[in-house]
């Protein structure tokens, strides 16, 4: 797996590179600005980019903008966005063009190396990862505005939250201490309550997650 890191803070950038290299991952380039990052993407053809949200010059959403541009230049590039805070608008921006191969994590998760690496692999394999904190905030917000979401039972909401984090049925069952069959039942019920018919061609898991991210988007 070829990785590019875009992070303006030198110490953190080197720390991340050190951590990943110690895991025998191939960090092909590191960048401190959005411009350097795009050059590195063009030059090194990475599989995954790890991108900080706030980068120079204005330190607002340059990372998100650069990530979207990198995916336009290199379709299929997996991007894991790291953010110091939950910046919901940015997360929604990022996922508005589809969730496959995208992740949004708080920086503090990187310290839990095993979970971070799992998330990185999931994104690289085309899955999606959304930070539990983001999920919790979106859930609180969307429950007030989306009536379909408010019909979900607490357990189903929990399952949908874990789906949004990118977990598969098995992993969800493990987290909730229930059987695979029970998880499957919850997911079927979620799809029906969110009116996602079984013959729908779109990936229903992704659609459900997007529904989650933005109350009325289908």
């Amino acid at each position, binding site marked *: 797996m070829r990785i590019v890191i875009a992070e303006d*803070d030198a*110490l*953190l950038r080197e*720390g991340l590179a*050190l*951590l990943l290299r*110690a895991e025998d991952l191939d960090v092909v380039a590191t960048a401190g600005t959005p411009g350097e990052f795009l050059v590195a993407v063009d030059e090194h053809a990475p599989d995954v980019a790890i991108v900080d949200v706030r980068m120079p010059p204005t330190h607002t959403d340059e990372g998100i903008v650069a990530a979207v541009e990198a995916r336009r230049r290199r379709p299929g590039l997996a991007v894991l966005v790291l953010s110091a805070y939950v910046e919901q608008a940015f997360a929604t921006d990022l996922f508005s063009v589809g969730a496959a191969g995208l992740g949004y994590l708080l920086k503090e998760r*990187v310290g839990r*190396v095993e979970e*971070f690496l799992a998330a990185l692999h999931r994104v690289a394999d085309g899955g999606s990862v959304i930070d539990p904190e983001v999920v919790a905030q979106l859930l609180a917000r969307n429950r007030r505005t989306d009536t379909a979401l408010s019909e979900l039972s607490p357990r189903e909401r929990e399952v949908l939250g874990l789906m949004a984090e990118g977990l598969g049925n098995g992993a969800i069952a493990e987290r909730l201490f229930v059987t695979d069959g029970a998880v499957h039942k919850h997911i079927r019920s979620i799809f029906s309550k969110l009116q996602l018919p079984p013959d729908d061609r779109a990936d229903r898991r992704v659609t459900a997650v997007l529904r989650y991210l933005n109350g009325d988007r289908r």
Partner: protein
Amino acid sequence: MAYVQAQVRASVNALEHLVGGLGTATLALGALLWAATVAVTCLARVGLLAAPGALRAVRSVADRERARLSRRGEPIPTPGPVPAGLRTAARDPFVRRELGWVALYSLIGLVTGLVGLALPLYAVQDVTFPLWYRLLPADAGAPGIVWWRIDGLSEALAVGLLGVGWLAAAIWFSPVLARLQAWPGRWLLPPPPGVDLSLRVAELTATRAAALDAHAVELRRIERSLHDGTQNRLVAVNVLLGAARRALRRNPDRADEILGQAQDAAEQALGELRTVVRGILPPVLDDRGLVGALAGLAGSSVVPCRLEVDVAVRCAASVEATAYFVVAEALTNVVRHSGASQVDVAVRRERARLLVSIEDDGHGDADETRGSGLTGIRRRVEAYDGRMTLTSPPGGPTRMDVELPCGS
């Protein structure tokens, strides 16, 4: 006698105002004619396009009168531009009252102005008549009184006496005329009751918004420095600790090295946190003001520091804090990196800008991309729309110039 003196002085003042009023009244007459023409053409819908322009013209004349009356007595605030849109403008209480005023004033203002101006002119003409009546043929009559045959000095002196009468009338009546002339404006141009308060509120809101803006800039700066510095350091500590834990299992020697890096990052976080906290509002600024605070910095500098401060009027607290921060950081840099034996700090205020310069005689070659000190200075200065320039050729000297808007 004193009473007459005061009366003469009052009438001279009044005359001055009457002449000024004559000017605005003439403009008002012009605006009235224009507005009337536009109103008539409006009936045929042609004038609708010209109506906003006519209203603006009336407003501009009214504003002149407001300014004139404000110079003389209680100030009358201007309501600002005419509201956009004819319907809104037609409902606007200011516009309605101004239209009334322009009609009333173009009559009263002109008549009072002309009479007020004529009285002293008649007085001068008639009082001096005995001196020049011989130049006129006898049957030309007195000035303005054709049927009064002037046959000799006695008649001329009688005309002069009439002139004294005119003079008395001018002295007694000018103040009354001036008051009469000002009356339409005093009545119709101030904001209608109730509206006055909203103007004051708008004014106060604007000044308060400016203060809040300055406040927001400061908060953003603190947020930025906490985010860019302390928080990122702590994230790095966290990342390195995670890596160290992984390494412990596989390669304990490597773990020790990573833990060392983590500790360095933690120390940096502490250092930066200290800088942020100290930079918010150094207590010494409150206690001793900018001059005292800078003197304290200069006095405790390891490299001998000459200080020159010329700031007669204090700047906004956040600007002074920034200047203090700049000097403190710059002196730290000089001590750490320059190898200088002397440093000069000059701070002066030029109109609305605070200029800070720091120059040392060290070996130069300061690089902004190395270390966070210079970057920190630049960021903080730019947060205030200020400018920072650094010249530091190899071999020295190093000079930093910082320019900050004072905000007061």
